[in-house]
């Protein structure tokens, strides 16, 4: 089980993963966000 705060709003996130399969997640629509298009990653790799 992984518990962490959302880096945007601070709300708690919980994910249960077993053998590479997401068994449970709370909230149900956890997402990740990248604001730099992949074509620009090499311009600033530490922040990509």
């Amino acid at each position: 089980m992984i518990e962490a705060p959302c880096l945007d709003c601070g709300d708690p996130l919980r994910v249960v993963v077993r053998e590479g399969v997401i068994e449970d997640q709370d909230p149900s629509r956890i997402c990740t966000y990248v604001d730099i298009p992949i074509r620009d990653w090499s311009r600033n790799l530490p922040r990509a």
Partner: protein
Amino acid sequence: MEAEAGFLSLAESMAVMSTARHRERLNGHYVSSVTSYSQQFAAKIKEVTQNNPFWDPAPYLAREPR
């Protein structure tokens, strides 16, 4: 809006981050293998994002160290 293309669901992120490019980072031969790892990563990105231009890795791959 291009910025909206930056969102990936948790499952999509997991699929992308599960390629060898991330999984093998502690491998002693990582640097010498990174080109093939990056090709797998790029293929998975294309599959997961359905060829969304925001996620087009072609220019990024062109700059990978050799």
